[in-house]
């Protein structure tokens, strides 16, 4: 057969063989990935979609650092039981500013895509300090040091600037005020709160998340957990069928 004959000859050329491997292996990715960047329907447009505040972003980085994604997904599938258990199924637009996405692949613990506002800040703090204090049979590790570690805010502006280069719509003002805004988010009565709300919108949660007198990693992580699923309210609207 001529194809086998052609292969018989190809086997004699190492560089030709490598080129053939590259060609054969490139097709799948090109067909499946490239259109996701060009087809507009891939990511819905959510009019009220907001970006993470510096504090929430810092919390997200802690979530990544501790590897929370290894046990918790953030992607509710379009299946009846998932929607009933966790809430409306996830839209692509909800993670459009997530570099990288944290959809996860395993649910040793529950999905967290719509965790925000389901539990109180106090519950989260207690749960992170020792999960078994609030869920006796939990197998989650304890993270008590989050409550004592001071949050490093010095280079938060740089984080925002890098994300802007990658396409997240952070403004110059947001970047310049990032460290202040992080603290301001835990001081609802402070003067800086007005600026924060002006930059990030009325929907921003301003609360003394952990209640500590200084900004801790616990504040950041809880702020992030409380914003999960809350960046847009469109998925919760009853008539939405994207």
């Amino acid at each position: 057969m001529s194809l086998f004959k052609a292969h018989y000859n190809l086997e004699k050329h190492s560089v030709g063989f490598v080129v053939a491997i590259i060609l054969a292996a490139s097709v799948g990715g090109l067909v499946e990935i490239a259109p996701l960047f060009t087809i507009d329907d891939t990511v819905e447009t959510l009019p009220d979609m907001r970006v993470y505040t510096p504090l929430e972003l810092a919390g997200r980085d802690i979530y990544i650092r501790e590897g929370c994604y290894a046990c918790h997904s953030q992607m509710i599938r379009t299946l009846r039981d998932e929607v009933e258990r966790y809430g409306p199924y996830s839209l692509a637009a909800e993670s459009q500013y997530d570099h990288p996405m944290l959809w996860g692949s395993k649910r040793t613990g529950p999905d967290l895509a719509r965790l925000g506002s389901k539990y109180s800040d106090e519950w989260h703090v207690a749960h992170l300090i020792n999960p078994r204090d609030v869920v006796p049979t939990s197998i989650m590790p304890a993270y008590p040091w989050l409550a004592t570690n001071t949050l490093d805010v010095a280079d938060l502006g740089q984080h925002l600037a890098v994300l802007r280069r990658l396409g997240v719509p952070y403004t110059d003002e947001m970047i310049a005020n990032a460290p202040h805004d992080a603290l301001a988010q835990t001081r609802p009565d402070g003067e800086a709160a007005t600026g924060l709300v002006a930059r990030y919108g009325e929907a921003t949660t301003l609360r003394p998340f952990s209640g500590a007198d200084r900004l801790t990693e616990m504040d950041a992580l809880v702020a992030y957990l409380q914003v999960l699923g809350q960046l847009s309210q469109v998925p919760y609207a009853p008539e939405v069928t994207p």
Partner: protein
Amino acid sequence: MIAKLTRTERHLGLLLSICLALLGLTMAALGKHDPMAVHGFIALALGLTLVFAVGGVLEEPAPDPARLQRYYDDPIKVGIVLAMVWGVFAMGVGLWVAALMVWPEATFGQPWSGYGRLRPVHTTGVIFAFGGNALIATSFHVMQRTCRARLADQLSPWFVLIGYNLFLVWAVTGYFMGVTQSKEYAEPEWYADLWLVVVWLVYLVLYLRTLKRRAEPHIYVANWYYLAFIVVVAMLHVVNAAALPVSWVGAKSYSAFSGVQDAMVQWWYGHNAVAFFMTSGFLGMLYYYLPVRAQRPIFSYRLSIISFWGITFFYLWVGSHHLHYTALPTWVQNLGMTFSVMLLVPSWASAGNALATLNGAWHRVGDDATLRFMFVAAVFYGLSTFEGSFLAIRPVNALSHYTDWTVGHVHSGALGWLAMVTFGAFYSVIPQICGRTAMHSARLVEWHFWLALAGLLTYVFALWNAGITQGLMWRTYNAAGTLNYSFIDSMEAMRPYYIARVIGGALFLAGICVGAVNIWLTVRGARGAAADVPLAPQAAE
């Protein structure tokens, strides 16, 4: 070993070691309090060690020209020992994380020992450290023997081995410190990723240069698989790791991709790490060591061709089966499912080709634990690829995804296929390159085999049960039409399976420990060089 390098190679090696030390010093100085500084110090220490090691023998007399009439096996020995050390470490950490699922307090309150930080230590350790060193070491052996030519030079194999292990040390120590890109199976940060690209290019060039010296007109099929492993892993790595560092003097970076595109890129990478790291390279091993050990030629040359190109083409389409029913467009999900099912054809062609090769040598499978390792590997390769295609079907995936079934599936591949074929290959190659007729102890090989098999079966049965139970509990409705179980109910139901998993893991770990001891004793009792010699007349280097 270093004195066996030519004087030019020693000088070049010294220069590279100095460069590494300087790179480490720069990273340490600029990184200040960042974890990058720790990685700088690691590179500095390694660089200085190499400077002294190479510098100490720099002006020794040039090595005997007769070496060119033999194969160059030193890096293979070192690679295998490294693979076994990493294997014991990474499977030990695996046992620990399995224990954490039963006894969550076993983190001892330390930040570095939380499940989320240890898990990538285990996965990177087994797949990339144990598996990667095994692939590199055996590829050096297979490329020389199937080309009947000596390695193209004596320096680049060391560059590849040492450079790759530096990448691994950076990766693993990084996870302990919380340095991660959080992309599964691609967690190391940007500078480690860049370093890997350099190492990988040297590896590819070394492979091609050695192939160029071959005394056989045809490139043997095992080399196709090793080449696909090297080339496609490079493609995947370069795309998936694309990121912008927050600062050039810090570890933290943000992925270039976000949301749904990132998810697709990640699983295009992730599933093909399975395909081209955990499958293709190990098929290269299987295609060489199984026929050699069974003393039978490969059953079918044409089947080899079909399965090789089927795997190389189909696999790149299937990543989206990790994203069924998610926010990824349905057309991509359907393509992923379709190709996953089609993938069964080349996968079973490979497994069938291997098993058919054993036809006529079944008595050897019974007598020889080394060959039995490879037989079990081929069987589990067939089983896991069938399971993989099955799990990729959307309605099946609706039940299995996010559960421990997936974890069980990965381990049936990683333990049953990857580790088993590696042990078979190691037990075949080590006596040969140590100038011995057999391993130090055949009885220990037997012990290793039965411990590994018992551990493997315990593990996968536990997690099949765990996964299916979880999946069913999550979707069970009661008569009132509401969900019958809370999430906590399903989690509590896992406990017996998680305990069984710890037992399975402990058995497998015990097996690899026995293997490591046996390998160490064999290497230590080496009786000269390999008896076989290259056919190709060797040009002076």
